[in-house]
């Protein structure tokens, strides 16, 4: 991590209402990076989905179990690591939400949105328990600071 990178860690109990707190921080950081509003919307939704998975499926909504979210924002990329204390899951067991026969199944869309909105989604399953999801997105068009017209 470079010295001018922005790094924020959040540690929440596994309650649904705490997801909104992470969401608010994610939106604020992405706007701070100068991303377009559409990108802010997409990336923060991907982050929300990963955190919600940790709270709901990883930690089974047990408020004594924690979800740790680490944001690292540089000029080049957004990198977010989400870690829960759950027992992990089998990615292949999730239904493909784009298969018409799975339309009414509730699961699988969060991961679809993460994969759609991020450049990389990586899962790490710890042997002693705990799942870490790492989301990464290259910042392609950082906002250029406005300058006075005619300024030298």
């Amino acid at each position, binding site marked *: 991590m470079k010295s001018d990178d922005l790094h924020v860690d959040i540690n929440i109990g596994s309650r649904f209402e705490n997801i909104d707190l992470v969401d608010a921080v994610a939106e604020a950081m992405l706007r701070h990076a100068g991303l377009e509003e*559409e990108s802010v919307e997409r990336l923060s*939704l991907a982050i929300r*989905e990963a955190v*919600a998975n940790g709270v709901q499926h990883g930690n089974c909504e047990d408020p004594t179990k924690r979800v740790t979210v680490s944001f690292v924002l540089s000029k080049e990329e957004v990198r977010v690591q989400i870690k829960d204390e759950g027992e992990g899951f089998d990615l292949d067991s999730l239904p493909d939400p784009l298969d018409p026969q799975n339309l*009414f199944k509730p699961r699988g*869309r969060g991961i679809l949105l993460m994969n759609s909105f991020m450049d990389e989604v990586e899962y790490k399953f710890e042997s002693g328990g705990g799942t870490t999801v790492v989301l990464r997105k290259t910042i392609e068009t950082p906002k250029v600071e406005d300058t006075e017209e005619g300024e030298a």
Partner: protein
Amino acid sequence: MTMTARNRGGVTILEPKGKITIGAGDIVLRDAVDEALAAGSSKILIDFSKVTRMDSSGMAELVAAFKRISDASGQIKLLHLPSNIRDVLGITQIARVFDIYEDEDEAIQAFSG
């Protein structure tokens, strides 16, 4: 998220305001649809103009509502989808299931029966 409901021409128009997300807005949506069905409404229009965000739990609730209403021989349509909601409903292909309108009069007239 808050929900208001009104009736126009035999159609129940649900107007959610805020986020339809896990643990809050998704439950409000479920309860509002159940309440409308219990009251005998078979034509339900959801106006999304004041919805700021919908996550995968909200989407799951929306397709569940579609199924419950269809199973009750009813109809559900969507109105005024903001671009971010249209975006995620398109990616997940949920948009293909619903009739989506930009004009309330047109949506009301499209309900049959």
